[in-house]
């Protein structure tokens, strides 16, 4: 297998059978697919997908009870990427997991492609809910969780939201209502990477220094106060991610209320020139930057195909 992962083979993996070291290795490949695909498409989001990569990889290669050969299995766990602009992170993960050929990522955001710039459940195998307009995914996940309870189905529904996205009012409508339905089969992952596209200029600082979308909010207290179980982790640390998953599994069907994972991450995580820089909310890497990213991720130069 080449490190650039353009071979079209899936990495396999099933529930619980990949541990942190292996997940970390897959995450490097996902990160490479994110920057190289966006570079090839000449437009797309970078920072959000990279902050979420470790959680996506942990979900799809460790936690979710899914079968890429049966993407519509009614008993499967569900995942909703509410921060839909991070689609390339989801697509890269789904491709490596075997939902469609890795080579298909080359069509990302092109006309007639199954891989639209925002997730489309009608087009892409493995996408459970269409998203894009921010703030809507948790409501859909709540509906699915309520329906699963009514049908005595045992699957778990996961929703990933961004901290910037959580400025949308509908998020808090869903947060407010979910505990009323006893949905301990629903987990909301708040990917708190601390930056958004433009953000909130901090008054006395340099104009390129941005304050966090939810920086003034005690998110854990707020979510606890709304009636949720809350776990806080470093969302770029697999030991902490997997420990949180274990707790979610213990609460599934027993806790009587939904769970929120406050997943503190770094925007643009894993590549030095994107990590922590809000200007890389979206962006296209130059050939030199791509080479650098490859060296940082794999310790080698890319094999020329990306030039």
């Amino acid at each position, binding site marked *: 297998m080449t490190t650039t992962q353009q071979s079209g083979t899936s990495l396999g993996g099933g529930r619980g059978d990949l541990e942190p070291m292996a997940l970390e290795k897959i995450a490097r490949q996902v990160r490479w697919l994110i920057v190289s695909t966006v570079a090839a498409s000449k437009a797309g989001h970078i920072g959000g997908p990279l902050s979420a990569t470790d959680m996506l990889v942990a979900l799809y290669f460790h936690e979710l009870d899914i079968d890429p050969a049966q993407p519509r299995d009614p008993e499967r766990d569900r995942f909703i990427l509410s921060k839909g602009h991070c689609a390339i992170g989801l697509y890269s993960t789904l491709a490596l997991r075997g939902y469609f050929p890795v080579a298909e990522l080359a069509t990302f955001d092109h006309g007639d492609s199954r891989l639209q710039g925002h997730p489309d459940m009608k087009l892409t195998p493995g996408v459970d809910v269409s998203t894009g307009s921010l703030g809507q995914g*948790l409501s859909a996940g709540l509906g699915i969780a309520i329906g699963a309870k009514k049908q005595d189905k045992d699957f778990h529904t996961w929703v990933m939201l961004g901290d910037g996205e959580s400025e949308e009012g509908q998020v808090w409508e869903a947060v407010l209502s979910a505990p009323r339905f006893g949905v301990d089969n629903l987990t909301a992952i708040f990917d708190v990477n601390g930056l958004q596209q433009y953000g909130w200029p901090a008054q006395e600082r340099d104009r390129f220094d941005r304050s966090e979308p939810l920086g003034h909010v005690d998110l854990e207290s707020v979510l606890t106060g709304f009636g949720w179980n809350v776990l806080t982790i470093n969302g770029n640390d697999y030991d902490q991610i997997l420990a949180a998953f274990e707790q979610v599994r213990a609460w599934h069907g027993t806790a009587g209320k939904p769970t929120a994972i406050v997943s503190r991450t770094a925007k643009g995580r894993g590549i030095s020139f994107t990590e922590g820089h809000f200007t890389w909310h979206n962006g296209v890497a130059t050939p030199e930057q791509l080479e650098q990213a490859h060296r940082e991720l794999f310790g080698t130069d890319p094999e020329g195909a990306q030039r």
Partner: protein
Amino acid sequence: MKAQRKVWGETVLSLAGSDDRVLVLDADLATSTQAVQVANELPGSFLELGIAEANMVGVAFGLTTLGYRPWLSTFGVFLTSRSLDQIRMMVSQTNAPVRLSGAYAGLLNGSSGKTHQDLEDLATMRAMPNMTVLAPADEYEIAAMMPWIADHDGPVYLRVARDAVEPVFDADYRFVPGRVYELRPGGDVTLVSTGVQTSRVVQAAGLLAENGIEATVVHVPSLKPIDEDGLVAAIGRSPLVITVEEHSVYGGLGGLVAEIMAGQGGPRVIRHGLADRWSESAPNDFLLDKYGLSPRRVADRVGYLLGDRHGVPEAASA
């Protein structure tokens, strides 16, 4: 005479009773919309979402992915305006079988009504891909539409009126999507209407007949889909077509008829409704008169357009 919302509550209760896929979702208006009938009789088929309509639309969408056929119940304006983005992305884009029941749609929604009137719903819902848009005339038509909606695989917007009107159909009515109904023949002018306004237009035609003016009355309950040929045939060679609706003159029935007739080289189309203006909070009779929708005012307006200069030139039309 029976209010459409009452029939809506009875019918959705009966649908839920015979089909586990039917769930009724409420946003704290169950007594107004009559979803309370389901809450009382079939609590397992009822979900209270509170005063949070955007979330309700998303929850409804989520339920459809597990095979449910949710009926949303709230005031139309909170669905079609407040939750427009959610309907657009989650329901229209995915062709989800969500039943958007917009109660109190139109001009007449009781006291303190100004901000709750929905006079743009037909325009916005008609522009949504995959959406079926229905505006029944009376208690019988809504009762006949609802079983059809229950079996339909895509999303539907159903306009539900608050108050009872004089029926124009009877219990034998059968709903055919897209079909237009000629309720009365005439040769001088064609009046095209939708929703409960049709009842008032039929009465207006009676007033016109007393003055020797024969009006064809065409009822359009299904704005989307629409049988275009049927509409053109019903309008025929009328010298003048006037659309009349409890809706803005932009984008609703008037827009629909004008769009279709523009391709026909046909007669002039006058759109009569709320003409780019806000209404106000007031009793029904006052609102119908002031905004030109009572039978008397519709008749006066038609008379004016046919040359009676004692008619109503300033009425809310375009």
